[in-house]
């Protein structure tokens, strides 16, 4: 059975000033599936996923054409509530970026800025989210310690847990393991596989094996173009484009 479409992009063009970073990207991201974006550095994969939660708004001089729809919401429409969108679409960054606050404060942040004051509710959400991110046992005795004292892998899982607190529908991972050691990487990958039961996940990765291990769909991008997009096992076994095959076999990139 074919999964439902969660996000669909239509003819997306994106410009940094006069440089065209994305060229006519159209694709559908499916609900409760892991979609991986692979491709060499600078191919536009991060730029693309940052369109889904409008993080590119922060960069001055950028412009987007085309439409991205999420459950009927036109993401780039000027009247779209960005704050609400970002609550629905969580993001985990390349470098773990916990705030220089306690673990608990990091976790509660999303709720507090959302105006929630009920302490027992916050506490319960924090605990379930930490458990969800398989971090609770590591940190349950030191919730009031600085988050910066955690190891890199723990910090990244904290960042994932921090997203889960606000109960998003989509999770964007922008090279989440780029700065982590192999064991931490494996933990994050296991977590992604676990989380996809409840969330639509989009992940950008440099690591092709990682895409093969965690994703259901894989998009291969090159120089701002979407070269091929299909089920992951097809991309990795019988790619239709020669360029995809060459990239996957390490002939360039």
């Amino acid at each position, binding site marked *: 059975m074919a999964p439902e479409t969660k996000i669909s992009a239509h003819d997306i063009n994106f410009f940094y000033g006069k440089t065209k970073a994305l060229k006519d990207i159209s694709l559908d991201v499916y609900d409760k599936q892991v979609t991986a974006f692979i491709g060499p550095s600078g191919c536009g994969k991060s730029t693309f996923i940052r369109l889904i939660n409008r993080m590119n708004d922060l960069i001055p001089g950028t412009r987007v054409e085309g439409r991205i729809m999420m459950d009927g919401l036109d993401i780039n429409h000027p009247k779209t509530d960005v704050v609400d969108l970002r609550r629905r679409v969580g993001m985990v960054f390349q470098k773990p970026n916990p705030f220089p606050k306690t673990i608990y404060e990091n976790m509660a942040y999303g709720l507090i800025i959302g105006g929630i004051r009920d302490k027992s509710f916050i506490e319960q959400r924090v605990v379930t989210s930490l458990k969800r991110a398989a971090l609770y046992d590591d940190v349950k005795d030191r919730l009031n310690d600085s988050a910066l004292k955690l190891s890199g892998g723990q910090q990244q899982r904290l960042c994932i847990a921090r*997203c889960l607190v606000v109960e998003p529908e989509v999770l964007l991972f922008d090279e989440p393991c780029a700065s982590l050691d192999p064991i931490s990487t494996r933990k994050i990958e296991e977590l992604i596989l676990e989380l996809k039961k409840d969330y639509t996940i989009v992940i950008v990765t440099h690591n092709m094996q990682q895409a093969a291990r965690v994703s259901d769909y894989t998009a291969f991008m090159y120089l701002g173009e979407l070269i091929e997009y299909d089920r992951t096992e097809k991309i990795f076994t019988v790619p239709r484009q020669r360029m995809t095959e060459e990239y996957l076999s390490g002939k360039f990139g």
Partner: protein
Amino acid sequence: MTTNKSVTDNLIETCPKKGSQQRKLFRLSDFTQVLGFIFLIGCILVALFFLGSIIYFIFSRGITIISWEFLTEVPRRAMTKGGVAPAIVGTLYLTLGAIAFALPLGLASAIYLCEYSPGNFVVNIIRLAINNLAGVPSVVFGLFGFAVFVKLFGFGVSILSGSLTLGIMALPGIISAAQEAILAVPQSYKEASLALGATHWQTIKKVVLPTALPGILTGVILNIGRVAGETAPILFTAATFYTRGYPNSIFSEVMALPYHIYALMTEGTRPEVQTAIAYGCALILLALVLAISACAIILRQKQRITYGS
């Protein structure tokens, strides 16, 4: 070993002249290095000597008069007896007033310049103006304060006028320091906050400012410390030679340590007694300013420990 030796021998044989020249050059550069080093050390020692002798001079002359009475009592018998407590209190009031005025204003300006300004021509002019404000002589600030706060706004010669004048003088430094502290907050913190659905203002309030706070406070304290000992800005705006007791409102004129020193040295009728009092005041002022700076250093140190940078 043998091969090494033969290679060296070989080198010397093939270019003996060059070798000796190089050795000479080395010796020359060694010599200039040592000379340069001695020169630099000498400069530091001279600077330290002046600093040390100022402290020693003020301390040795001022310490003799310092006593509990001197710190806690009002002046008596035409400034020849009693203490200088009103001047200490006055300086504290003026300093606190300057902070109360300059901190919010400077912080708000820095937030605007860092976070909201479009970064265009007008903003660059604002930045330039702020930086130039730092170079304006203090007596000019004093005249400005007199014309605007004392006369135009009708605050009179008062704590309020003096605090505002000192505050304006500290403002450029505070804005620059706050800007630096805000810009030093990693972009990744802001991204994390915004990505969690925080508004720009929430991000500033909950992430940027708390992270930048130690840096901002350090800047505020250092700049306040710098202006707290100024005489010229309060000369026409706040200070007076003698008050009966302590000020009772922000519209009172006050005694202040820097002005008190100035007055004792220029208008005193019994210099043989009053000069000693002036040195006592100088010592207290020096201690106050050093204490303020020490606060800044402690804060900065604490920040380093917290963020491990």
